[in-house]
Protein backbone atom coordinates (compact mmCIF):
# COMPACT_ATOMS: atom_id res chain seq x y z
CA UNK A 1 0.00 0.00 0.00
CA UNK A 2 1.25 3.42 -0.89
CA UNK A 3 -0.34 6.41 0.72
CA UNK A 4 -0.73 9.63 -1.28
CA UNK A 5 1.98 11.44 0.62
CA UNK A 6 4.27 8.53 -0.10
CA UNK A 7 3.35 8.51 -3.79
CA UNK A 8 4.39 12.13 -4.22
CA UNK A 9 7.76 11.36 -2.73
CA UNK A 10 8.48 8.60 -5.26
CA UNK A 11 10.74 9.72 -8.09
CA UNK A 12 8.73 10.47 -11.23
CA UNK A 13 9.99 10.64 -14.81
CA UNK A 14 13.37 12.15 -15.64
CA UNK A 15 13.28 15.91 -15.16
CA UNK A 16 14.12 16.73 -18.77
CA UNK A 17 11.20 14.60 -19.97
CA UNK A 18 8.61 16.31 -17.78
CA UNK A 19 10.02 19.75 -18.70
CA UNK A 20 9.83 18.85 -22.42
CA UNK A 21 6.28 17.57 -21.93
CA UNK A 22 5.24 20.75 -20.05
CA UNK A 23 6.75 23.03 -22.73
CA UNK A 24 5.13 21.02 -25.54
CA UNK A 25 1.77 21.09 -23.76
CA UNK A 26 2.17 24.84 -23.36
CA UNK A 27 2.70 25.22 -27.12
CA UNK A 28 -0.42 23.12 -27.78
CA UNK A 29 -2.33 25.15 -25.18
CA UNK A 30 -1.41 28.44 -26.89
CA UNK A 31 -2.28 27.04 -30.33
CA UNK A 32 -5.67 25.80 -29.11
CA UNK A 33 -6.50 29.10 -27.42
CA UNK A 34 -5.58 30.93 -30.63
CA UNK A 35 -7.90 28.67 -32.67
CA UNK A 36 -10.69 28.96 -30.10
CA UNK A 37 -10.55 32.76 -30.17
CA UNK A 38 -10.59 32.79 -33.99
CA UNK A 39 -13.55 30.44 -33.94
CA UNK A 40 -15.48 32.60 -31.47
CA UNK A 41 -14.74 35.83 -33.30
CA UNK A 42 -15.32 34.17 -36.73
CA UNK A 43 -12.09 35.79 -37.89
CA UNK A 44 -10.15 33.76 -40.48
CA UNK A 45 -6.75 32.43 -39.43
CA UNK A 46 -3.72 33.23 -41.59
CA UNK A 47 -3.06 30.17 -43.75
CA UNK A 48 0.40 30.85 -45.18
CA UNK A 49 2.09 27.44 -45.12
CA UNK A 50 -0.66 25.31 -46.62
CA UNK A 51 -4.10 25.99 -48.03
CA UNK A 52 -7.33 24.67 -46.56
CA UNK A 53 -7.38 26.20 -43.06
CA UNK A 54 -10.75 27.81 -43.62
CA UNK A 55 -12.21 24.60 -45.06
CA UNK A 56 -11.22 22.71 -41.93
CA UNK A 57 -12.03 25.44 -39.42
CA UNK A 58 -15.42 26.26 -40.91
CA UNK A 59 -16.46 22.63 -41.35
CA UNK A 60 -19.14 21.05 -39.21
CA UNK A 61 -16.41 19.14 -37.38
CA UNK A 62 -15.03 22.37 -35.95
CA UNK A 63 -17.41 22.24 -33.02
CA UNK A 64 -19.24 19.75 -30.84
CA UNK A 65 -22.55 20.80 -29.32
CA UNK A 66 -21.82 24.43 -30.15
CA UNK A 67 -18.44 24.35 -28.37
CA UNK A 68 -15.38 24.82 -30.58
CA UNK A 69 -13.32 21.63 -30.72
CA UNK A 70 -10.24 23.82 -30.13
CA UNK A 71 -11.64 24.71 -26.68
CA UNK A 72 -11.64 21.00 -25.75
CA UNK A 73 -8.06 20.91 -27.03
CA UNK A 74 -7.11 23.88 -24.86
CA UNK A 75 -8.58 22.17 -21.78
CA UNK A 76 -6.71 18.94 -22.58
CA UNK A 77 -3.39 20.73 -23.14
CA UNK A 78 -3.77 22.70 -19.94
CA UNK A 79 -4.47 19.47 -18.06
CA UNK A 80 -1.41 17.86 -19.70
CA UNK A 81 0.72 20.87 -18.76
CA UNK A 82 -0.47 20.75 -15.14
CA UNK A 83 0.17 17.02 -14.87
CA UNK A 84 3.66 17.38 -16.39
CA UNK A 85 4.51 20.18 -13.93
CA UNK A 86 3.26 18.10 -10.99
CA UNK A 87 5.25 15.13 -12.30
CA UNK A 88 8.35 17.33 -12.52
CA UNK A 89 8.01 17.86 -8.78
CA UNK A 90 8.05 14.10 -8.26
CA UNK A 91 4.39 13.14 -8.25
CA UNK A 92 4.43 9.79 -9.98
CA UNK A 93 0.65 9.40 -9.99
CA UNK A 94 0.38 12.60 -12.02
CA UNK A 95 2.82 11.19 -14.57
CA UNK A 96 0.62 8.11 -14.86
CA UNK A 97 -2.42 10.34 -15.45
CA UNK A 98 -0.38 12.34 -17.95
CA UNK A 99 0.26 9.08 -19.85
CA UNK A 100 -3.47 8.25 -19.90
CA UNK A 101 -4.34 11.75 -21.13
CA UNK A 102 -1.58 11.66 -23.76
CA UNK A 103 -3.00 8.35 -25.10
CA UNK A 104 -6.52 9.83 -25.34
CA UNK A 105 -5.18 12.95 -27.03
CA UNK A 106 -3.18 10.87 -29.53
CA UNK A 107 -6.32 8.86 -30.38
CA UNK A 108 -8.36 12.06 -30.90
CA UNK A 109 -5.50 13.47 -32.99
CA UNK A 110 -5.53 10.37 -35.20
CA UNK A 111 -9.28 10.80 -35.71
CA UNK A 112 -8.92 14.51 -36.54
CA UNK A 113 -6.10 13.79 -39.00
CA UNK A 114 -8.30 11.16 -40.65
CA UNK A 115 -11.15 13.69 -40.95
CA UNK A 116 -8.85 16.28 -42.50
CA UNK A 117 -7.30 13.81 -44.96
CA UNK A 118 -10.27 11.74 -46.03
CA UNK A 119 -13.52 13.51 -45.14
CA UNK A 120 -12.86 17.25 -45.36
CA UNK A 121 -10.05 16.87 -47.89
CA UNK A 122 -8.06 19.80 -46.55
CA UNK A 123 -5.50 20.50 -43.85
CA UNK A 124 -5.09 23.36 -41.43
CA UNK A 125 -1.58 24.27 -40.33
CA UNK A 126 -2.64 25.14 -36.78
CA UNK A 127 -4.47 21.82 -36.49
CA UNK A 128 -1.32 20.06 -37.74
CA UNK A 129 0.74 21.92 -35.11
CA UNK A 130 -1.70 20.66 -32.49
CA UNK A 131 -1.40 17.15 -33.92
CA UNK A 132 2.40 17.40 -33.68
CA UNK A 133 2.30 18.56 -30.06
CA UNK A 134 -0.08 15.81 -28.98
CA UNK A 135 2.06 13.19 -30.74
CA UNK A 136 5.14 14.56 -28.93
CA UNK A 137 3.25 14.32 -25.63
CA UNK A 138 2.36 10.72 -26.46
CA UNK A 139 6.01 9.92 -27.25
CA UNK A 140 7.08 11.62 -24.00
CA UNK A 141 4.65 9.47 -22.05
CA UNK A 142 6.00 6.33 -23.76
CA UNK A 143 9.58 7.35 -22.99
CA UNK A 144 8.56 7.97 -19.38
CA UNK A 145 7.10 4.49 -19.20
CA UNK A 146 10.28 3.04 -20.68
CA UNK A 147 12.33 4.97 -18.16
CA UNK A 148 10.23 3.72 -15.27
CA UNK A 149 10.68 0.11 -16.40
CA UNK A 150 14.39 0.43 -16.83
CA UNK A 151 15.12 3.07 -14.24
Amino acid at each position, binding site marked *: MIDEAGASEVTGPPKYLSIAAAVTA*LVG*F*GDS*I*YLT*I*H*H*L*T*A*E*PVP*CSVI*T*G*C*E*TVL*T*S*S*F*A*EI*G*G*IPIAAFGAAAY*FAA*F*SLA*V*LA*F*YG*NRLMWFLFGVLACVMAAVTAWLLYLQAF*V*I*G*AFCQFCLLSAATSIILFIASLLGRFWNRNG
Partner: protein
Amino acid sequence: MKKEAKPQENNKMPLLIIGGVLVAAAIIGYLYYNSSRTPGGNANRAANASNVNSNRSPSATAPLGANPPNMIGSPTAAVTIEEFADFQCAACASVHPILKEIQSIYGSRIRFIFRNFPLGIPQHDKAYEAAVAVEAAGLQDRNKFWDMQNQLFVNQQAWTNSPNYRNLWEGYAQQIGLDVERFRNDMAGRATKERVDADLARGRGLGLDSTPTVLVNGKNIPFQAMTAANLRQVIDSEIQNSLKAPAANSSNEANTSRNAAAPANAQ
Protein backbone atom coordinates in the same frame (compact mmCIF):
# COMPACT_ATOMS: atom_id res chain seq x y z
CA MET B 1 11.36 24.03 11.64
CA LYS B 2 13.48 25.05 8.66
CA LYS B 3 13.50 21.49 7.37
CA GLU B 4 9.66 21.43 7.24
CA ALA B 5 9.41 24.73 5.42
CA LYS B 6 11.24 23.57 2.32
CA PRO B 7 8.94 20.68 1.28
CA GLN B 8 5.94 22.98 1.80
CA GLU B 9 7.47 25.50 -0.61
CA ASN B 10 8.13 22.64 -3.00
CA ASN B 11 4.47 21.60 -2.82
CA LYS B 12 3.29 25.11 -3.53
CA MET B 13 5.60 25.71 -6.47
CA PRO B 14 3.79 23.52 -9.09
CA LEU B 15 0.46 25.05 -8.12
CA LEU B 16 1.96 28.53 -8.45
CA ILE B 17 3.30 27.66 -11.93
CA ILE B 18 -0.01 26.13 -13.05
CA GLY B 19 -2.03 29.01 -11.62
CA GLY B 20 0.36 31.54 -13.15
CA VAL B 21 0.04 29.97 -16.59
CA LEU B 22 -3.75 29.87 -16.28
CA VAL B 23 -3.95 33.54 -15.24
CA ALA B 24 -1.50 34.59 -18.00
CA ALA B 25 -3.50 32.59 -20.59
CA ALA B 26 -6.76 34.15 -19.40
CA ILE B 27 -5.35 37.70 -19.61
CA ILE B 28 -3.61 37.22 -22.99
CA GLY B 29 -6.64 35.35 -24.35
CA TYR B 30 -9.02 38.07 -23.21
CA LEU B 31 -6.88 40.83 -24.73
CA TYR B 32 -6.47 38.91 -28.00
CA TYR B 33 -10.19 38.11 -28.14
CA ASN B 34 -11.05 41.80 -27.78
CA SER B 35 -8.53 42.84 -30.41
CA SER B 36 -9.73 40.14 -32.86
CA ARG B 37 -13.40 40.92 -32.49
CA THR B 38 -14.69 43.03 -35.36
CA PRO B 39 -17.01 45.89 -34.42
CA GLY B 40 -19.61 44.43 -36.83
CA GLY B 41 -20.45 41.78 -34.30
CA ASN B 42 -18.79 38.62 -35.55
CA ALA B 43 -18.88 37.34 -32.00
CA ASN B 44 -22.65 37.52 -32.09
CA ARG B 45 -22.56 35.53 -35.30
CA ALA B 46 -20.49 32.87 -33.63
CA ALA B 47 -22.76 32.84 -30.60
CA ASN B 48 -25.82 32.51 -32.79
CA ALA B 49 -24.11 29.77 -34.77
CA SER B 50 -24.06 27.58 -31.71
CA ASN B 51 -27.85 27.84 -31.58
CA VAL B 52 -28.15 26.56 -35.12
CA ASN B 53 -25.53 23.92 -34.65
CA SER B 54 -27.32 22.54 -31.65
CA ASN B 55 -30.16 21.58 -34.00
CA ARG B 56 -32.59 24.19 -32.74
CA SER B 57 -34.99 25.71 -35.25
CA PRO B 58 -33.55 28.86 -36.77
CA SER B 59 -34.98 32.12 -35.58
CA ALA B 60 -38.10 33.24 -37.38
CA THR B 61 -36.78 36.78 -37.26
CA ALA B 62 -33.94 36.08 -39.72
CA PRO B 63 -34.12 38.03 -42.99
CA LEU B 64 -35.89 36.10 -45.76
CA GLY B 65 -33.01 36.13 -48.24
CA ALA B 66 -33.14 36.66 -52.00
CA ASN B 67 -36.71 36.92 -53.22
CA PRO B 68 -37.71 34.85 -55.11
CA PRO B 69 -35.26 32.31 -53.76
CA ASN B 70 -33.28 29.99 -56.00
CA MET B 71 -35.67 27.12 -55.55
CA ILE B 72 -36.28 23.75 -57.10
CA GLY B 73 -39.12 21.34 -56.30
CA SER B 74 -42.53 22.36 -54.99
CA PRO B 75 -43.07 25.56 -52.97
CA THR B 76 -45.77 23.76 -50.97
CA ALA B 77 -43.77 20.62 -50.16
CA ALA B 78 -43.84 19.46 -46.55
CA VAL B 79 -40.05 19.35 -46.47
CA THR B 80 -37.87 22.38 -47.12
CA ILE B 81 -34.17 21.88 -47.63
CA GLU B 82 -32.16 25.06 -47.48
CA GLU B 83 -28.50 24.92 -48.42
CA PHE B 84 -26.03 27.72 -47.64
CA ALA B 85 -22.90 27.32 -49.71
CA ASP B 86 -19.73 29.05 -50.84
CA PHE B 87 -18.42 28.26 -54.32
CA GLN B 88 -14.81 28.13 -53.12
CA CYS B 89 -15.59 25.74 -50.29
CA ALA B 90 -14.30 22.26 -51.08
CA ALA B 91 -16.75 20.62 -48.69
CA CYS B 92 -19.64 22.36 -50.51
CA ALA B 93 -18.40 20.92 -53.81
CA SER B 94 -18.24 17.46 -52.22
CA VAL B 95 -21.82 17.73 -50.93
CA HIS B 96 -23.12 19.12 -54.25
CA PRO B 97 -23.62 15.73 -56.03
CA ILE B 98 -25.35 14.35 -52.93
CA LEU B 99 -27.85 17.20 -52.88
CA LYS B 100 -28.40 16.83 -56.62
CA GLU B 101 -29.18 13.17 -56.03
CA ILE B 102 -31.66 14.14 -53.30
CA GLN B 103 -33.33 16.63 -55.65
CA SER B 104 -33.74 13.99 -58.36
CA ILE B 105 -35.05 11.38 -55.90
CA TYR B 106 -37.65 13.58 -54.22
CA GLY B 107 -38.60 15.99 -57.02
CA SER B 108 -41.75 17.89 -56.05
CA ARG B 109 -41.96 16.20 -52.63
CA ILE B 110 -39.35 18.65 -51.39
CA ARG B 111 -38.64 22.33 -51.72
CA PHE B 112 -34.91 22.82 -52.26
CA ILE B 113 -33.55 26.33 -51.79
CA PHE B 114 -29.98 27.32 -52.54
CA ARG B 115 -28.58 30.29 -50.63
CA ASN B 116 -25.36 32.05 -51.51
CA PHE B 117 -23.16 32.30 -48.45
CA PRO B 118 -19.68 33.35 -49.63
CA LEU B 119 -17.42 33.38 -46.59
CA GLY B 120 -15.66 36.71 -46.25
CA ILE B 121 -12.21 35.25 -45.84
CA PRO B 122 -9.06 36.01 -47.85
CA GLN B 123 -8.71 32.42 -49.08
CA HIS B 124 -12.14 32.65 -50.71
CA ASP B 125 -11.30 35.76 -52.68
CA LYS B 126 -13.48 34.77 -55.66
CA ALA B 127 -16.42 33.32 -53.71
CA TYR B 128 -18.56 36.46 -53.65
CA GLU B 129 -17.97 37.08 -57.36
CA ALA B 130 -18.82 33.45 -58.09
CA ALA B 131 -22.13 33.87 -56.26
CA VAL B 132 -22.79 36.98 -58.36
CA ALA B 133 -21.97 35.00 -61.53
CA VAL B 134 -24.51 32.32 -60.62
CA GLU B 135 -27.14 34.97 -59.92
CA ALA B 136 -26.33 36.58 -63.28
CA ALA B 137 -27.05 33.25 -64.97
CA GLY B 138 -30.31 33.03 -63.02
CA LEU B 139 -31.38 36.45 -64.25
CA GLN B 140 -31.45 35.14 -67.82
CA ASP B 141 -33.32 31.96 -66.99
CA ARG B 142 -34.06 30.42 -63.56
CA ASN B 143 -32.99 27.00 -64.86
CA LYS B 144 -29.65 28.42 -65.96
CA PHE B 145 -28.97 29.29 -62.33
CA TRP B 146 -28.78 25.59 -61.53
CA ASP B 147 -26.69 24.88 -64.63
CA MET B 148 -24.18 27.56 -63.68
CA GLN B 149 -24.19 26.47 -60.03
CA ASN B 150 -23.33 22.98 -61.22
CA GLN B 151 -20.57 24.25 -63.51
CA LEU B 152 -18.92 26.22 -60.70
CA PHE B 153 -18.97 23.32 -58.26
CA VAL B 154 -17.86 20.70 -60.79
CA ASN B 155 -15.01 22.91 -62.08
CA GLN B 156 -14.15 24.43 -58.69
CA GLN B 157 -10.48 23.45 -58.77
CA ALA B 158 -9.96 24.78 -62.30
CA TRP B 159 -11.31 28.31 -61.82
CA THR B 160 -10.21 28.70 -58.21
CA ASN B 161 -6.59 28.27 -59.24
CA SER B 162 -6.81 30.30 -62.43
CA PRO B 163 -5.96 34.01 -62.68
CA ASN B 164 -8.30 34.09 -65.73
CA TYR B 165 -11.26 32.70 -63.80
CA ARG B 166 -13.66 35.23 -65.33
CA ASN B 167 -12.82 33.92 -68.80
CA LEU B 168 -13.49 30.40 -67.56
CA TRP B 169 -16.88 31.48 -66.17
CA GLU B 170 -17.76 33.08 -69.49
CA GLY B 171 -16.81 29.79 -71.12
CA TYR B 172 -19.19 27.96 -68.80
CA ALA B 173 -21.87 30.58 -69.55
CA GLN B 174 -21.46 29.93 -73.25
CA GLN B 175 -21.52 26.18 -72.67
CA ILE B 176 -24.89 26.31 -70.89
CA GLY B 177 -26.36 28.57 -73.55
CA LEU B 178 -26.29 31.99 -71.90
CA ASP B 179 -25.97 35.31 -73.67
CA VAL B 180 -22.37 35.98 -72.58
CA GLU B 181 -22.53 39.74 -73.16
CA ARG B 182 -25.61 40.03 -70.97
CA PHE B 183 -24.06 37.69 -68.41
CA ARG B 184 -21.06 40.03 -68.20
CA ASN B 185 -23.30 43.09 -67.82
CA ASP B 186 -25.48 41.42 -65.18
CA MET B 187 -22.41 40.50 -63.19
CA ALA B 188 -21.45 44.17 -63.11
CA GLY B 189 -24.99 45.25 -62.23
CA ARG B 190 -26.57 45.78 -58.83
CA ALA B 191 -29.45 43.30 -59.02
CA THR B 192 -27.22 40.24 -58.77
CA LYS B 193 -25.20 41.64 -55.86
CA GLU B 194 -28.38 42.58 -54.02
CA ARG B 195 -29.58 38.98 -54.25
CA VAL B 196 -26.27 37.66 -52.92
CA ASP B 197 -26.32 40.24 -50.10
CA ALA B 198 -29.89 39.24 -49.21
CA ASP B 199 -28.89 35.57 -48.94
CA LEU B 200 -25.85 36.53 -46.89
CA ALA B 201 -28.04 38.58 -44.55
CA ARG B 202 -30.31 35.59 -44.08
CA GLY B 203 -27.39 33.28 -43.30
CA ARG B 204 -25.99 35.76 -40.82
CA GLY B 205 -29.42 36.28 -39.31
CA LEU B 206 -29.58 32.54 -38.72
CA GLY B 207 -26.19 32.74 -37.04
CA LEU B 208 -24.37 30.67 -39.62
CA ASP B 209 -20.61 30.87 -39.86
CA SER B 210 -19.69 27.78 -41.83
CA THR B 211 -20.43 26.14 -45.14
CA PRO B 212 -21.95 23.93 -46.28
CA THR B 213 -24.91 24.36 -43.96
CA VAL B 214 -27.96 22.31 -44.81
CA LEU B 215 -31.22 22.90 -42.96
CA VAL B 216 -34.00 20.36 -43.32
CA ASN B 217 -37.19 22.01 -42.10
CA GLY B 218 -34.96 24.31 -40.10
CA LYS B 219 -32.91 21.53 -38.52
CA ASN B 220 -29.21 21.80 -39.09
CA ILE B 221 -27.70 18.64 -40.55
CA PRO B 222 -24.12 18.10 -39.33
CA PHE B 223 -21.59 17.85 -42.15
CA GLN B 224 -20.76 14.23 -41.33
CA ALA B 225 -24.46 13.36 -41.73
CA MET B 226 -24.65 14.90 -45.20
CA THR B 227 -24.74 11.57 -46.99
CA ALA B 228 -27.50 10.56 -49.38
CA ALA B 229 -28.60 7.77 -47.02
CA ASN B 230 -28.75 10.01 -43.94
CA LEU B 231 -30.49 12.83 -45.75
CA ARG B 232 -33.07 10.40 -47.14
CA GLN B 233 -33.72 9.14 -43.64
CA VAL B 234 -34.21 12.68 -42.30
CA ILE B 235 -36.41 13.72 -45.23
CA ASP B 236 -38.52 10.53 -45.04
CA SER B 237 -39.05 11.09 -41.34
CA GLU B 238 -40.08 14.72 -41.97
CA ILE B 239 -42.53 13.56 -44.64
CA GLN B 240 -43.94 10.97 -42.22
CA ASN B 241 -44.28 13.61 -39.51
CA SER B 242 -46.17 15.91 -41.85
CA LEU B 243 -48.58 13.09 -42.69
CA LYS B 244 -49.09 12.22 -39.02
CA ALA B 245 -49.81 15.79 -37.96
CA PRO B 246 -52.02 17.36 -40.61
CA ALA B 247 -53.49 19.75 -38.06
CA ALA B 248 -50.08 21.24 -37.39
CA ASN B 249 -49.67 21.96 -41.07
CA SER B 250 -52.59 24.32 -41.46
CA SER B 251 -50.22 26.88 -42.91
CA ASN B 252 -49.19 24.36 -45.57
CA GLU B 253 -52.84 23.94 -46.53
CA ALA B 254 -53.10 27.66 -47.05
CA ASN B 255 -50.03 27.49 -49.25
CA THR B 256 -51.52 24.58 -51.20
CA SER B 257 -54.65 26.52 -52.07
CA ARG B 258 -52.49 29.47 -53.06
CA ASN B 259 -50.42 27.18 -55.24
CA ALA B 260 -53.54 25.86 -56.98
CA ALA B 261 -54.00 29.35 -58.30
CA ALA B 262 -50.40 29.65 -59.45
CA PRO B 263 -48.94 26.19 -60.17
CA ALA B 264 -46.35 27.58 -62.54
CA ASN B 265 -44.44 29.03 -59.59
CA ALA B 266 -43.12 25.56 -58.75
CA GLN B 267 -39.89 26.23 -60.62
